């Protein structure tokens, strides 16, 4: 799959994950390109239990080093970090999981992101 989103939220049961392809993938790349650098900031530490953000993984041909963790206004990857102003990317990514995520979970996570 060109890109995979994993909602990092569970401990025992596997985390939900879904693919991003086609026009959504093009839009995702544009959104990533427009992020401002966070200048070395690692962002907040996710909690141990509960919602820990969205993890983005890319296939090698996409040429994007990952995984990237999108959480609380930051996008953190192996080679840098960026600012997700207003958590726009995080909300958008979560909404792309509408066909995979349980409706109650999706609603709870969107509420958590605010």
């Amino acid at each position, binding site marked *: 799959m060109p890109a995979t989103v994993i909602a*990092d*939220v*569970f*401990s*025992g*049961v*596997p*985390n939900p994950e879904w693919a991003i392809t086609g026009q959504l993938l093009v839009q995702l790349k544009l959104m990533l390109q427009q992020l*401002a650098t*966070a*200048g*070395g*900031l*690692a*962002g*907040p*530490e*996710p*909690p*141990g*239990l*509960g919602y*820990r953000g969205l993890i983005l993984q890319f296939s090698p041909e996409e040429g994007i080093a990952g995984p990237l963790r999108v959480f609380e206004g930051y996008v953190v990857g192996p080679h840098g970090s960026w*600012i997700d102003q207003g958590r726009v990317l995080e909300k958008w990514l979560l909404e792309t999981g509408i066909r995979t995520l349980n409706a109650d*979970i999706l609603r709870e996570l969107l509420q958590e992101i605010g």
Partner: protein
Amino acid sequence: MPAIVTLDIYSGVPNPSWTLSDDQVQELQRKIGRTSGAEAQGGSLPVLGYRGFIIRPVESEHAPGPRVEGLEASHEGAEESVLSGIPEAEDFVLSTAGEAVDAELTRHVREAISAGTTRAALAEAAAEAARVTCPRCHAADAPAYNPGFWNAPGRQPRNNCYNYANDQATNTFAQPGRASGRMYTALTCQSVQPAAVSDGLAACPNFHGALARGHGWYVALVIWPGRDYHWYRQDNVGCWSHKPGSTPARNTDNSGAAIADPRTCNRGNYTQFCSYMITTRRVRIR
């Protein structure tokens, strides 16, 4: 006396610095003076991200300048002070940064300053962690806390809380009951606990009974109702540890405190405590 101020925020790259004029230092001193003594003892917190400002008086030819009054020294005997936990003074110092701090970073720091209650909670959690006394471990087989083994790149993402509690890295993201053909059917205590029993675990009322060598160690099952389950294990030091999903193994709860008892620790959404259980080396999981 002017001062050099450093925004204490980065871990890898150099922190931004700029100069406070004599007038600005006096204004800062006034703002610090308006806060109570308790507030003024914020000190720098050992957290990632914004930690405060370090203020160092400019030295004259013959002697260092006086330290800013009402702030803690950055370390014993230091001339420099740490400003943290006094939002009005922090906002003022941030406003003097000019081009030394760009707009995005300013926004981030301003948000961090206004989240003063969160920082206070972090400090309280750190203090709480230091106060926790681990209970005695009564299980001779209890594993040692060894996060390095579990957090290795090839192992961490493939093993979950059930693997960790049972001290078995199967690399299968093990599920209660899967190895014994009786996997849980609902995310409730009534469904997950019997599934674990079918794998060979046994429920018990507490973790105080002596378990001789060969008789296993204590674990605990909790539930995020309808969503997920989670396991803790008691290590040989008496405190408990866990591995939330594919994340690193750790020995602290959601408040950052050491875990003396999983029944009472901060478990986030996992509000339902099912029971303590005993696992052994004979248990099979998959």
